[in-house]
């Protein structure tokens, strides 16, 4: 159940995330070589403004994108609509933003 504004938010967040996801895929392939460890991850991310901005933007964009995507699924399969659907959308967006923000803080600070 999308109108033009939700559609635009979804597509714009998608465009923003395209380079971020490609970068993330590359990092994943690089980072998993030789096994994963907290020290290795944190040595890259801790104290880094750039990684903070990168993943911070990623979290904001994915919170918008995923909550709108889940909105459509909730409407089509669970038949949520109206105020309930809006509440669902905001809630999922907020949960992703909160948990994601905490994760970014965890690896950057």
């Amino acid at each position, binding site marked *: 159940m999308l109108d033009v504004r939700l559609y635009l938010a979804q*597509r714009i967040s*998608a*465009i923003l*995330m*395209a380079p971020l*996801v*490609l970068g*993330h*895929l590359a990092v*994943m*392939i*690089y980072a*998993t*070589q030789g*096994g*994963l*460890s*907290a*020290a290795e*991850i*944190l040595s890259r991310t801790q104290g880094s403004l750039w990684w903070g901005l990168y993943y911070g933007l990623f979290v904001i964009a*994915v919170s918008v994108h*995923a909550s709108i*995507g*889940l909105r459509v*699924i909730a409407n089509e399969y669970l038949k949520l609509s109206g105020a309930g659907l809006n509440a669902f959308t905001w809630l*999922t967006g907020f*949960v*992703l933003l909160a*948990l*994601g923000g*905490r*994760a970014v*803080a*965890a*690896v950057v*600070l």
Partner: protein
Amino acid sequence: MLRPHRRHPLWFAYILHRISGLVLALFLPAHFYVLGLALNDAAELDAFLIWAELPLVLFAEFGLVFLLAVHIFGGLRLLALEFLPWSPRQKTYAALATALSFFVSGGFLLSAV
């Protein structure tokens, strides 16, 4: 048994995009939680990362990387469909997106194993 009217490639592309999006959306809170473990104590994160060595977990990770790749490449296909002049090669693009996703996630699996 898939309903007959759905048995064409672009419907599969649609359902793959939907399933990948849904699985990723459900995975994300767990992913964020695990990373958040580093907030308190990096050792807690390490204890969890030990699990990542298990073959089953590696294979699940491969699956997730595949779904992420297929969602973004499929998404780029959709953005092109919507914002660029129409191409009659829709099925080709859908196939290419899926093939590229196998390639990328295969690269991940090989580097992680």
